[in-house]
């Protein structure tokens, strides 16, 4: 773990062009598992704040928030995966991603770190997954003994099937 943290630091200092975003994932915690999200999509991470509910939305769209004057919708990833809802606490974070030029906030239990996972260490998602949620996966990333579930952000946001 500390190993990857150092890597991240090094990278931040030495190169900051687009290429360095390759194979980098923002990892977060959700219901006992670690997930990863391609860092290229992430614009920022903010603490949980008051969400204004919008009627007639699917349950996983919690509502909208004010991000410095911009109104952006917020999706609860737990609800997106049909997991049990969890009360928000001080560790709850909103990861703001930008896909197809629209910003969306993703509510997660806890943000971990930025980890580099080379392509060679990513395995395809398990085909025999029992839940439907596996279609939103990009693969399973291995860092030493740990496994991070890598999400396909675009499908997570835009795949209609789950609605």
């Amino acid at each position, binding site marked *: 773990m500390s190993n990857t943290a150092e890597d991240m630091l090094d990278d931040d200092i030495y190169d900051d062009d687009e290429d360095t975003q390759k194979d980098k994932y923002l990892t977060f915690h959700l219901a006992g598992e670690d997930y990863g999200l391609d860092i290229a999509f992430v614009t920022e991470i903010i603490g949980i704040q*008051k969400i*204004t*509910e*919008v*009627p*007639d*939305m*699917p349950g996983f*769209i919690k*509502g*909208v*928030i*004010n991000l*410095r*004057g*911009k*109104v*952006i*919708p917020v999706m609860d990833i737990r609800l997106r995966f049909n997991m049990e809802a969890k009360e928000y606490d001080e560790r709850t974070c909103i990861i703001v991603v930008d896909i197809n030029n*629209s*910003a*969306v906030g993703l509510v997660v239990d806890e943000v971990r770190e930025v980890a580099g996972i080379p392509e060679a260490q990513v395995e395809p998602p398990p085909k025999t997954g029992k839940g439907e949620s596996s279609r939103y996966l990009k693969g399973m990333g291995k860092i030493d003994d740990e496994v991070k579930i890598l999400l396909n952000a675009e499908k997570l*946001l835009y795949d209609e099937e789950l*609605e």
Partner: protein
Amino acid sequence: MSEQYDPEHIEMVQEFVQEIRELLDELEPVIIEMGQSCSDDGEVGDITDDINSIFRLFHSIKGAAGFLNFTNIATSSHSAENLLDLIRTDVFPLTADHIDLLCQGIDFIRAAIDHVENEFNDEALAEESKEIRDKFLQAIEHSKGGDTTAAAPETAPAPPKAEAPPLIDLYAQPAESVSPEMVKSFISEASYLLQNLEEELLRWLKDLDNHDILNEIFRGIHSFKGNCGFLDFADMEALSHQMESVIDFTRTGGQINKTSAGELLLKLIDIHRESVTDIDNGGSGEIIGLDIYRDMLADLLPANQKLAPIQQGKQAPLPAPPERLGEILIEQGATSKEEISDSLAQQNKPLGEILLESGSVDEKQIEKALETQAKRRQKKAPGKQAVKKQDIRVDLGKLDSLIDFIGELVIAENMVINNPDLEELELDNFQKAGQHLGKIVRDLQEMAMTLRMIPVSGLFRRMIRLVHDLSRKSGKKVDLQLIGEETEVDKTVIETITDPLVHLLRNSMDHGIEPAEKRLAANKPESGTIKLSAFHEEGVVKITIDDDGGGLPRDKILAKAVEKGLINGDGSDMSDKDVFALIFAPGFSTADQVTDISGRGVGMDVVRQNLEKIKGSIDISSKPGQGTKVELQIPLTLAIIEGMLVRSGESRYIIPIINIIESFRATPEMITIAPDGQEVVKVRENLLPIIRLHEMHGLTPDNHELEKGILVVLEARGANFCLLVDELLGQQQTVIKGLSSYVSKFGGNIGGVSGCTIMGDGEVCLILDVQKILEMTQEPEGE
């Protein structure tokens, strides 16, 4: 033109397209107005000015098109120019056919620039262009009475510099009516010309033998003179005429001290600038000490070359308070005119110093004169503003994002000043600084709101052409009066109301105004009047279309409505207002026959839809035999609405004030519950259905009893209902923000929400769409 276009060319073409569009918009109404003045019994009014300005505009189009190698556009405008030139020089009079032809020419150029905008060349237009050219040629020959020596259309545009700038008849009568717009464009053009002249003069002073520059200067001063003469600024015209003579003398090889001539001309440019500033401030543009300057110019020329001063409609300026130091000194008898002009002619230092050196005046006199000058300048202080009042074109996208940023700034400022972390702290200095910031931000916001505002004159002027065409088609004589053209409205609003306005005017022309015989029989003037006016009232803009036609036929509308099953019974008990509202029903038309102007009944519901899109409304009043008045009420801007903040449970909402009629607390006896559970409240004589906001949005209200909440009576499309909320929190200006596009992808009505706003505390608050709520509640009934 080559097949490949570099970005520079494309950019130039885009600029060209914009410029030509503006020119055309300017040109069209002038032509129509001119047409009106000549169609009235052949008694041609004074149209010299109009002809000249049209000629000039076609000339500019030709020049610009020629420059970009748009041969077809250039040649067709050239043929229009030929025609106008012949009219201008009184070879034959202007006829209505000419007006039509000019309109066709404009239509062609419009189509051509649309084409050019996409293709970057006009090669495909050769045929149409030839057609137009032939028409002009025919018209010229015809008007000349078969004289075939008429100017043949040139195959290539004349090179821009080969033609002298538009010739203005210097001896013409002063312009009958100089509109403020004309003065405004004169000012910006004059400032531009003077700027150019100054640059050219400076260049020339460094390169005295350069003939090209001299020619450039000559052309510049000539145009300037023309402009001045056109608007009857006699002093400036006279002075520039003499400047022109000096330059002409110089460029034709006359013996002259070039350096001193150049310096003097530079000085005189400054004099002109002052006059232009004076005009900008509402002055007459007269030049104080004109005679001195003219003498100075004359002194440059050898004695036998002295030119007679230009003949003027008006005499040289009356002795007005002199402003120049030299004048004052003469006035005080300290020196003579000759001394002053000698000094001025070689002037590089302040005049006072030179005079001192030459010993012609003493220090005290100068001081006294300078003092007087300062005092007098002070008096005229407002006239000292810079003339640099020019427009620049800005990309609308940039403007919008600037306005967005300012909107965010307003919110951010609120969040800082009302930050919960600062509560209960004593922060005197912070408060002061905060108030200052707040004021600046509000000013900025106000300014930002005006940026998108443009006057309705452009829109109104387009209607002149419409009415002209319709009037020719239908044979009805109509006088269109435009009132309040300067009223400013958001650009998007203008775009949205263009179609409705066109439609309403067509209606007025086709159904409203009666044929001449009928009007005469009804003791009305033969030609009808349509008044199109715009004005501000209580934060909204009202646009009215008022005709003096036959009025709306109540009986006919009712009969049609009964036939279509739109109303129950014969409708005899309906108010006029309700009856007139029927014409907004889709497919409604009372026209006995469908004409090519209107009558298919698709119009009025589209008019209403367009207005609803921008949160506007429409109102009709009509008196049989006296006319119809349609009033459009539109918001000033789409970015801000006046809203009422309401609360239901923990949630707050904004309701647009425009939809709110009243609010009250109900008593039990006012409420009735229908068997299907629908609650109805009796407000005076009306029974209104109640919609509970908390039920619609799944909220937990303070209490469920109707009597404890507040009922807000809302109106949309003439239908009323009540919305139950817990509390009214107050009225406020609401900056509208769209819900994210990601949200709208889930579709649906979004619970009757049209958008959202950000409150002072940073929280997002939804804006209710009354129209949508009404539709949502009515849907189940239809099933």
